[in-house]
């Protein structure tokens, strides 16, 4: 029980100290999980991270589940995950509650109109960063463009594209189109 509580607290700390998730989380994980507690080695963290990126869901949550499971089995995985989502739940509920009350003030509206422009640029930068790791040959470029164009013009669930692309990835690899 003490271990479960420690896992919860350690990952809540990681959650509070990380802005943005993803790679931003690595230094905090290193400090809390590797240096302070010795629960995993740096190499293990990188392995969890790599698998976390290529399994469904939020990478931070996947990594938390891995570390928790390695320390205390299934309950450990669950407590570590609850720890990492706890700060978000509290902070976002407070901010969302406040913002809802101020949303009609003209200055707040102007501020968010400016912020939306910034969000466009942040998404563009995220795409540019992911592009490097994802588009390594012509077949991948084709898949990406097909998904982009279809999802701009059609009203299909993203699930359709995900399932289709996983199948296409296996097919392309089998056909030997990959890497050309």
């Amino acid at each position, binding site marked *: 029980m003490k271990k479960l509580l420690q896992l919860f607290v350690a990952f809540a700390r990681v*959650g509070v100290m*990380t*802005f*943005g*998730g*993803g790679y931003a*989380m690595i230094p905090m994980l290193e400090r809390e999980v590797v240096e302070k507690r010795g629960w995993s080695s740096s190499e293990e963290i990188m*392995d969890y991270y790599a*698998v976390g990126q290529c*399994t*469904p*869901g*939020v*990478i*931070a*949550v*996947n990594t938390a589940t*891995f570390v928790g499971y390695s320390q205390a089995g299934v309950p450990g995985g669950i407590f570590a995950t609850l720890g*990492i*989502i706890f700060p*978000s*739940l509290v*902070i*976002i509920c407070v*901010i969302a509650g406040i*913002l809802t009350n101020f949303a009609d003030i003209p200055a707040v509206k*102007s*501020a*968010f*109109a*400016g*912020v939306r*422009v*910034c969000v*466009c*640029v*942040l*998404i563009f*930068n995220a*795409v540019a960063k992911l*592009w490097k790791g*994802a*588009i390594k040959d012509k077949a*991948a470029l084709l*898949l*990406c463009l097909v*998904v*982009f164009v279809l999802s701009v013009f059609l009203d299909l669930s*993203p*699930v359709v*594209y*995900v*399932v289709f692309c*996983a*199948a*296409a*990835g*296996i097919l*392309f690899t*089998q056909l030997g189109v990959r890497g050309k």
Partner: protein
Amino acid sequence: MMLYLRLFFEFFKTGLFAVGGGMATLPFLYDISDKTGWFSHAQLADMIAVSESTPGPIGVNMATYVGFTTGGVPGALVATLGLVTPSVIVILIIARVLQSFRQNKYVDAAFYGLRPCSVGLIAAAGILVVRIALFRFDLFSRTGRLLDVFNFKAIVLAAALIVLTRWVKTTKGLHPILFILASAAVGIAFRF
């Protein structure tokens, strides 16, 4: 009660199919917005900004925000638990067979296809934000003047932000929260 079940189900689906981290949940959130009308595209853009500027993983923050907007504090809890449940189940299964999973050639081949898919889906979701942030199709449809399509102030700000976040050495490594705050200030100062 139905609302909470639906919320859980929608976020469970998001958690199960969004591959590649927080931003990958974005296309799913737009899909939820279109299907249910729980929140608008403009609200979603604001939620992205708040999620980037507050502690915690972006994907979790966005789920909490959408859940709160839709069903208050219980909604926030249900949406977030829905998002993480598939992760926990999948990881607990994979943790037992970690090495063989990473080296499996079919898993590797599937992800070769999934990575470009994520890029395409996130880019398409970005287009939806661009539509409301940089263009004014509603104004254009009222006035019919072609110049009214463009939101010039916003386009200038976007160009400046791209230069600052990508090319200027002293600013490009700065945290996104600083650019978000600066954009809010510009929005107020120039009455966006």
